[in-house]
């Protein structure tokens, strides 16, 4: 649709510390895997131009620090987010158990209709290292109505699929909203923190819509 021509989709990667948020962004955007990596401090993003079923889309993927302490900073970035890739680590039960925390956090801070995809990383691990069976991921994904993939940054499994699914859902969401609100999507949007994704009730002239302040 012309509606989405060269649009920017803002996506957040969330999840516990050390589940592989930076890794998946690198893998997807740079098509590389780094074995020695460092924890993320503050916030960063990468962009990738994708071909979404024949339509070019700019995916802007925001990577954040995982520790709870830094939430006050990262919640500012929820505001313009259209999609969230929520991650856990299949070798860490803790990271899986914390999904409820993350889902609550998303509910409190992101737009009500934000699109979510669940990804369980490090699925290439040895059976003995696995702490979370795939079925448990399936179940929570079903409960919260989000697509789910077990992924591996190391072996490049399901990375592309996860992001493409997220992008498709964002597109659908926007088309759906476009039906209900004629002016949605027709607004001029700046690159970066676009004015969309704020939810149907704050559309239009929100003074903060182009800002990233908290």
């Amino acid at each position, binding site marked *: 649709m012309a509606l989405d021509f060269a649009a920017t989709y803002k996506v957040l990667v969330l999840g516990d*510390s*050390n589940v592989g948020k930076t890794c998946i962004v690198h893998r997807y955007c740079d098509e590389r895997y780094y074995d*020695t*990596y*460092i*924890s993320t*401090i*503050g*916030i*960063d*993003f990468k962009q990738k131009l994708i071909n979404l079923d024949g339509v070019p889309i700019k995916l*802007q993927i925001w990577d954040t*620090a*995982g*520790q709870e*302490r*830094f939430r*006050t*900073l990262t919640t*500012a970035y929820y505001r313009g987010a259209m999609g969230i890739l929520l991650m856990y680590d299949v070798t860490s039960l*803790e990271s899986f158990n914390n999904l409820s925390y993350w889902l609550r956090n998303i509910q409190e801070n992101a737009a009500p209709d934000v699109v979510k995809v669940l990804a369980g990383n490090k699925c290439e691990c040895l059976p003995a290292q696995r702490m979370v069976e795939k079925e448990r991921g399936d179940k929570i994904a079903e409960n919260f109505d989000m697509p789910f993939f077990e992924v591996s940054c190391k072996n490049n499994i399901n990375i592309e699929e996860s992001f493409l699914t997220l992008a498709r859902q964002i597109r659908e969401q926007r088309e759906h909203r476009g039906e209900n609100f004629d002016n949605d999507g027709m607004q001029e949007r*700046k*690159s*970066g*923190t676009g004015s969309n994704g704020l939810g149907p009730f704050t559309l239009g002239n929100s003074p903060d819509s*182009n*800002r*990233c*302040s*908290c």
Partner: protein
Amino acid sequence: MDDSFENGHEISTNDGILLRKGPALYLPEILQSTTGTLSLVHYANNVLCIEWKPNDNFLIADADTQVQDDWSFVDTIAKRTRTASETIAFNTSSGTIAHKEPSPITPATHQNQIKPRIVRAKIVDLKNIEVYKNGHSIRLVNKSDGKTHSEYFFQHGNADSFLRTLKTTHCLRPSRNNRNIYEIVENIDYDKEKLEKTFAELKIEDIKGSGGWISNMVRNPIGHTFDFLAKMSDAYTVLPGVVQNVYTSHTTDTSSMATSTNDEYEVLGTSPRPSSESSSNDNHEKDTENNLPPRPHIIRGSPLTEKQWCEFLSEDGRITDVERVKEVIFRGGIENSLRSEVWKFLLEYYPWDSTKIERIEHRKEKEKEYFKMKLQWLTMTPEQEKNFSDYRDRKCQIEKDVKRTDRTEEFYQGDDNQNLGFLQDILMTYVMYNFDLGYVQGMSDLLAPILSVMNNEVDAFWCFVGFMELVYTNFDMDQAGMKRQLQDLNYLTALANPRLFRYFEEHGAENMYFCFRWLLVWFKREFQHSDVLTLWEVLWTKLPCSNFHLLFSVAILDDQMNIFIANQFEFNEILKHVNELSTKIDLQQMLKKAEAIYYQIRRAEHLSDEVRLIIGEEPSNLSASKSDDEYDDNFDDVSVEKSPKDEANRQKKYEEACERSMINNFF
């Protein structure tokens, strides 16, 4: 400057005075041996001050930009805004003090609107004045802490006349115990008329001294220039790094001295020194419409050497001149081999005034204390851990971060590297030391370089504790400390570079989030390992103010401004650009720029109290100290003092526990 220092009345003035020691922010003047006047000034409300003021608008000469001006360094001292006729007037003691340069008291008369940098001491704040070096030098000593306020060298003669004025005005009396010390007389009524009267009783000629340096210069210019160079070298022996740069460049050129002396004399005698701004700006970036004084050129020095360090140690191992050590470190860092020793002082693990023997004892105590705390978590049973989720969370986060901290550094390379174990243990022990703060991401970044320098678990722990004391608010639960710093950075940017600030505002970037990583881990991620070590030790000196890291941030942003604007970056692009600056920043250049910005702001008039507080100045209006309270709101001061009853109770329980464990041991 405090606004109350206006319309003062100069009672007496002595010329040719070098500032030898003073508040840290006057370091450039001290380094440059800037000549100035020392005056006794009477202000309203009977406030009497001793004031030193540089003769010229102070200019920090840049050794590498003044090739044609090879004499510039000498000139900095010799050239004055004094014309030939004034020189004569000075030498013939006409009875009035030659004083053509802008008065410190009426800065508005200055064509460039620059307030001269005055070192000012209120008489009532001083304890005494010490005289030494055969009366050529005096030292003002603070009443409050007994430390040196400032030190002056009288080039034209000795301090007698100056002291005589003070004595005649009844401010001073000789100490009974030491003839070189003059005590300040308290509660004296500095009646202006009385002061003037007593001043009139003095012989002006005496005050100005006879046969000053200038007249000597006229009689024997070459000889006295050499004499002067010799004095300069004295002044620099404590800062060899700087001396080498400046001093050798002149001594190697002695052959040209003789030929250029005549010109030199002309410069000295007839041409007023060109405005310092024009010369400093020639080689410098244009100021961006901020109405601030120009940014001075800054010279960096060489690292503190082992030899220098030893010279600072007294026989029993105390550090004799802490401020000077810090100044050298601020200007050039520390030689790598010396870091493990000096960092312990900088990070307040070792007291500066401790003797070598005391330090050995201190270290033993600290070692015991460390292992006591380490034992606390080592003896935690799995059951305890299971029931202690806060502890478990901290432990878990440490494990995650240790294996991804500085792994490309040789010191932490390899999977079974024992240093990773030390990193883990120190952070775990820190959790026991400060459980409320616990472990927050970023701390491993702060510890890793310290451990690699110390190469010792216990020393690294206590140095890390010292570092955390400086930055713990970065890790507040509500991030209040980070928010405040970003706000402060905002104020400073607005002041130092209004154009950039406006650009940020117009492009949704005024929150400065892109500086978050810089501030959280003190630029650890922005520089290569060795640069991080240098930057940290510079910042640990807290010179010229404890928020120098914010000025350093302003310097980097200032440096990148053209890129932001030329590319019309929005917030996102600025963030991306800033993140990608990592390892591409020139440390020395940015340190110079940051210091220059500091002086620029420091010398500005009409600073807001917010800015004054940020750069470590007293607020102009003391009622504004309310903002201090605001800052403290975030930290609940939990009193840890126990009532005697509580203490007795605890002691009883403790003894009981010991007894019980003894029983277990024996049976």
